[in-house]
Each structure stands twice: as structure tokens, then as C-alpha cells.
């Protein structure tokens, strides 16, 4: 029987949890989006129901506000932990140089990996902040003020979906390229 190197159980559980919560937030978010698409308003093009969660606006909100607590908690904890270990774990300017210049392929790949998930954290933090600003534009009036007009705010919030889709795709492709199915098994079951 082949020996599989596994990440610790808590890492694997958290990774799976993150993936599920993000899919839930995105798909319920797209359901909410359908009530008023970004371009074209109520007569604009809706997202196909295959990709949405809820079925209609009220249900989309049940799921979206149902999961937002977990999403905020996990993201917040992740940011705290990684900030403490930022020198080793977070992508930095030096990583861009390493990707281009380093002769060591492992160093290049690790730099690219760090850059990818650091960008993910930035995009997700933006999603959280713009979401809060739309959720409580009066109570948190100072926060919604950061993002300009209402249209700018909602475009930014929605734009985090294609941004994350791109980053997740790069992350999956990079991981498969580096370790294929063996690496996938290491982070899953």
C-alpha cells in the first residue's frame, strides 16, 4: 500500500471547511445578485440557477447571512495567525523576484504558492468589508463611505467572485502541476 503524506487533521479539516463556506457564500451571493444584476439592473442578465443557492432572493439571504458568521470567524482567525507568522508564511515583494530569478524550482514554486494565497486573503477581506458595508450602510456609515457610491460598492463586492475564481483556478492548477493527485490526497482524505 502506498504511503500518503498527510497534512495534520486540523489543516485538512480547515481547508475543506474553507472551500465549502466559500462555495456557499459565492453561490448564495449569486442568488442575491440575480435580484438586481450589476449591469442592467432588474432587467439585466441573471446567473443560471445551476450556480445559485437558495432558489429565490429571501432564501439566498438565509444561506448568505447563515454562513457569513463562520466565514468572518475563519477569515479573521486565519489573518491573525498568518500575521503573526507573516515573515515565513505570507507572500512578499521578495517573492516576485524569487519567481523570476531563483534557480531553485522549489523556492520558485513556494513563492508562487504564497503569493496566490496571500492574494486570496486580500480578495476575501475585501469581500468581507464590502459585504459589511452593504449589510449595515447606516450603522457602519464610516465603512460604506470608504467605497464611494452604492454602485461602486456593489460592483466591488461582486467582483470578488471572478477574482476568487481566477485565484482558485491558479491554485488548483499549480498544486496539480507540482504534486498531482498525491498532493491532493495530502490535503484531503
Amino acid at each position, binding site marked *: 500500500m502506498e504511503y500518503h503524506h498527510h497534512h495534520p487533521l486540523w489543516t485538512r479539516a480547515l481547508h475543506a471547511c474553507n472551500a465549502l463556506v466559500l*462555495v456557499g457564500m459565492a*453561490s448564495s451571493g449569486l442568488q*442575491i*445578485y440575480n*435580484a*438586481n444584476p450589476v449591469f442592467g*439592473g*432588474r432587467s439585466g442578465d441573471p446567473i443560471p*440557477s*445551476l*450556480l*445559485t*443557492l*437558495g*432558489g429565490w*432572493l*429571501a*432564501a439566498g*439571504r*438565509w*444561506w448568505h*447571512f*447563515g*454562513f457569513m*458568521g463562520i466565514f468572518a470567524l475563519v477569515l479573521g482567525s486565519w489573518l491573525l495567525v498568518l500575521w503573526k507568522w507573516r515573515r515565513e508564511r505570507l507572500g512578499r515583494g521578495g517573492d516576485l523576484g524569487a519567481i523570476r530569478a531563483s534557480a531553485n524550482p522549489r523556492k520558485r514554486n513556494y513563492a508562487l504558492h504564497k503569493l496566490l494565497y496571500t492574494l486570496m486573503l486580500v480578495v476575501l477581506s475585501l469581500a468581507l468589508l464590502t459585504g459589511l458595508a452593504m449589510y*449595515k*450602510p*447606516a*450603522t*457602519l*456609515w464610516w465603512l460604506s463611505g470608504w467605497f464611494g457610491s*452604492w454602485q461602486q460598492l*456593489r460592483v466591488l463586492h461582486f467582483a470578488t467572485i471572478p477574482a476568487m475564481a481566477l485565484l482558485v483556478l491558479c491554485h488548483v492548477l499549480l498544486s*496539480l502541476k507540482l504534486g*498531482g*493527485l498525491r498532493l*491532493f490526497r495530502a490535503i484531503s482524505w
Partner: protein
Amino acid sequence: MKRRNLLQSALGTGGLLSLGGCALNPLGPEVAQLTRPLNERIEAWMQTNVAVPEFAQNQVEPAALLVNSFNGVPEINPASFSLTVDGLVQQPQQLSLGALGQLPQQEMVIRHVCVEGWAAIVAWGGVRLGDVLRLAGVSPLAGYVAFESADGYFETWDLRTALHPQTLLATQMNGAPLPAANGAPLRLASPLKLGYKLSKWITAIHVLSALNPQRLGTWEDQGYEWFAGL
């Protein structure tokens, strides 16, 4: 062998994710039941009694204020219009538009936010709901306010937000008398609640000590959130 496993994993995951949309939908109400009470508690706690900063007159967006109607536009004769205020109050009221006009008039420029996702900055003018309720003398037992509208629309609010200084019974919109389509002669206006809570064509206000869970509001009874705070 490895490529086949990879393809299977990808198809499986993708299939699962898209099926999830259809298969998970029925669980929606359970998710709401689990999380909504806590969410509404947090919303109420976050909301302060302090006034929400307002916008400038030149920031008003008249075209952005779309009109959603539950049941068309009812016909109301302003000359014979009378607002009922009763329930847990010391002096129940029947207020004509003239009587309401005698109370201190307020103006505010705030953002109207619809649950559909659009918003508009509007200049509202009218009387404070709190002033009307104080005129009637609200009982210390009161906790909620119910609003009846001429088109059959129904809403209930928490008393605290109803008494907030920026909750108005509006008669003016964007510097002109309130149009019929927007709720004339009397509608609710507030920066602190989602649009569906801002009843139009209000005919009666009832002050209550408790809510009927089966009758929280026209849209709440269909699954939308009750507190709906901004």
C-alpha cells in the same frame, strides 16, 4: 491510471458542487432558523440611538428611487384622510393631515436601500413618528408598532427604531409633495430599515406589547427578515 482518477475527482467535485445548488435549497429555512435569531440580536445591539450622518441636498438621486408596489396604487382622498393611532397608548388619535402638519416638521437626506440590492439618496420631509407616538402617550408595556396600509400591506417594527429621531412619517419627497406612487399622503422613511419595512399609504398605527409570529409583515410572512436593520 492517474489521469483517469484525476478526471473522476474533478467531475465528481464539479457535479457535487452544482447538484448542491438544487439539492441544498430545501434546507434553507433550517439554516435561517439556526442563524437568524442571533443575527437579528446582533443587528439590534449594533444599532445605536445616535443619528445616522446624512447626505447633502446635491447628492439626491431622484431617478434611482425605483417604485415597487405590492398591490398597485390605492386611491386616497387627502381631505377625508385620517390616521388612526391606537393600541397601548393613553390617548388614541385620529389625525387629519392638517393635524399632522401642526406637529414639528423634519427634513432629512438619507439613503433608501432596497432588499433587491439597489439604493437611492432621497430627501424626505414630514413629522417624526416618535412625536406622533408621544402625542398619543405610549405605554411602558409597549414593545412593537404595527402599520396598516391602504393597499393591504402590513408591517411591524421594534419600538426602539420607531422612536428613533430619523424615523419619519413622510409627506414630502425631494422638495415636493409626496407623489401617490411613492405612498402619498403618508409613508414611513428611515435610514435604519430596509425598503420593504417603509410602508406606503399608511392608514393606521397600532402600538403592541407582543408580536403575532404568524403576522409579522407582508414580506416577513414570506421569509424575509423582520428586524431588517441597516
